């Protein structure tokens, strides 16, 4: 393979070792690599407790994995269980990225997730060391010295190589550094025997490849690319490039989504079977999403409601739920949005117990002015718009729970209890 025309850069993909668990260890004066600690969310809908993060030692000793449940935890006195503090983790992530900015220009730093960032060091690594590994170590040491956290670094000539180096090699390396280059593709990429270990290959893709007689990356790299494209479409071509360590993406070119949407979803704390309770939560989510649409100065013209049934109900109904959309005149009005959602729900719900609810607003357009309706009195339309804005202003100033529907106090309402959550888990504000 001739790699001379492929992009050759120096990319780091940096990940925090057991991020949430490490932050909690450090705040308790404990060494993150030597402590058995799990971060467990115990909100209403986690069924006893959901493990969000596990320290490396707890993984090693008790084989606990993330997203395990409370019932899977051993009752061992060496183990510490702590609640999550999402806001603290966001703050730490910002501190880490501020450190990264000392090594790369702002435009070469791409936060990838709450604990992962991509750094394009092509132009700056020589300022900090004689080799990329040395620079990686310097970044690790700086973060450890200033924040007490351990980093794992994947190094590659493109972001794909860096990501695979991080996932497959860095996590098991003594220095927490892994590297893949074009020259080492045969020894480091093709030797990966388990397809699902590779980024972007999930269980279903692996299964599809196995059906085609491809069980590892070597076989993928030496398969017929035309056959892959014929079988899997554009993904087939992408997978073939992946097997050869090729990634031509330009991170500096931001991808513009074709159709942006805004939405919220939640898992209910228990199975809801009464219509009044389910409709209450739909109303709460509808209002929340409408407020977000207004906050972004947008109007929506397509509403989507997805309902997921409880296990028993989905087995009985022979479907796991339903998802339907409806069109409407561009709007950001809470009342109109919730009434349409309720109409959708009543049309398709047949009495099944519900566990998941999701509401999405798509086909957004800029809110450049109110389209008045000829059939509704003008003063009522203006009053409704002003009402929405006053509610938004009060909530922005005094918090979401400063103004709630009285019905949210009824049994089944989730808005008040969820208001302190960040990403569905405890934000930790009440501990400060």
């Amino acid at each position, binding site marked *: 393979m001739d790699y001379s025309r492929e992009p050759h850069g120096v990319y780091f993909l940096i990940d925090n070792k057991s991020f949430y668990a490490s932050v909690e260890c*450090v*705040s*308790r*004066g*404990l*060494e993150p690599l*030597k*402590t058995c600690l799990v971060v467990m969310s115990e909100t209403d809908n986690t069924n006893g407790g959901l493990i969000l993060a596990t320290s490396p030692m707890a993984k090693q000793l008790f084989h606990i994995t993330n997203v395990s449940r409370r019932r899977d*935890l051993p*009752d*061992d*006195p060496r*183990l*510490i*269980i*702590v*609640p999550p*503090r999402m806001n603290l983790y966001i703050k730490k992530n910002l501190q880490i990225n501020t450190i990264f900015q000392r090594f790369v220009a702002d435009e070469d730093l791409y936060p990838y997730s709450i604990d992962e960032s991509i750094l394009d060091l092509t132009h700056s690594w020589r300022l900090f060391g004689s080799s990329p590994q040395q620079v990686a170590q310097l970044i690790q040491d700086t973060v450890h010295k*200033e*924040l*007490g956290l351990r980093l794992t670094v994947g190094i590659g000539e493109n972001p794909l190589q860096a990501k695979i180096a991080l996932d497959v090699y860095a996590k098991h390396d003594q220095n927490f550094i892994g590297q893949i280059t074009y020259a080492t593709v045969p020894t480091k990429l093709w030797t990966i025997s388990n397809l699902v270990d590779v980024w972007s290959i999930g269980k279903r893709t692996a299964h599809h490849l196995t059906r085609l007689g491809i069980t590892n990356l070597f076989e993928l790299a030496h398969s017929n690319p035309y056959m892959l494209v014929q079988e899997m479409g554009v993904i087939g071509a992408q997978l073939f490039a992946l097997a050869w360590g090729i990634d031509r993406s330009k991170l500096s070119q931001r991808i513009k989504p074709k159709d942006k949407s805004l939405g919220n979803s939640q898992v209910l704390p228990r199975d809801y079977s009464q219509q009044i309770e389910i409709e209450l939560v739909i109303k709460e989510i509808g209002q929340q999403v409408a407020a977000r649409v207004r906050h972004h100065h947008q109007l929506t013209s397509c509403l989507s409601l997805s309902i997921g049934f409880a296990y028993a109900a989905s087995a009985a109904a022979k479907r796991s739920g339903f998802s339907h959309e409806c069109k409407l005149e561009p709007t950001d009005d809470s009342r109109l949005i919730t009434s349409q959602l309720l109409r959708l729900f009543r049309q398709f719900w047949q009495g099944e117990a519900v566990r998941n609810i999701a509401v999405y607003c798509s086909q957004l357009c800029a809110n450049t002015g109110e389209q008045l309706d000829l059939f509704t009195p003008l003063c009522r339309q203006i009053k409704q718009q002003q009402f929405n804005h006053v509610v938004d202003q009060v909530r922005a100033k005094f918090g979401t729970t400063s103004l709630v529907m009285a019905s949210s106090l009824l049994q089944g309402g989730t808005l008040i209890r969820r208001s302190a959550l960040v990403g569905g888990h405890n934000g*930790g504000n009440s*501990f*400060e």
Partner: protein
Amino acid sequence: MEVIALNEQILKREAKLIVQRCQDQFKQKRQTHYWIKVVNDHYDHTYNFFFNYQRLHQVERSVPVRTITESDLQWLELLIQEIQRLTEFNIEYEGFYHFLWPNAQRPIQKRRNQAE
């Protein structure tokens, strides 16, 4: 004079808040050890308070109760005295090895912990 009174007021309010949050977690279960942990966080320059509890031979639970951003040992000593006046929970210290209480001139933490 007014400044001292104000400081004392803040101190009492802090101690009351910490103790109240610990009391909220205190379930008075049998064979369970409850204690307050104070950590000198030298990365964030804060004093972190946790309420820990552990039932015999079972997992330890650790709940954050307060983060004090004022990193002043003299103030902490007064705060701890106030907490001890309000509650009888044991207090464990981390990150204070080699530190002395400024007024009492006694070591705060006797044994070095794993991270030091």
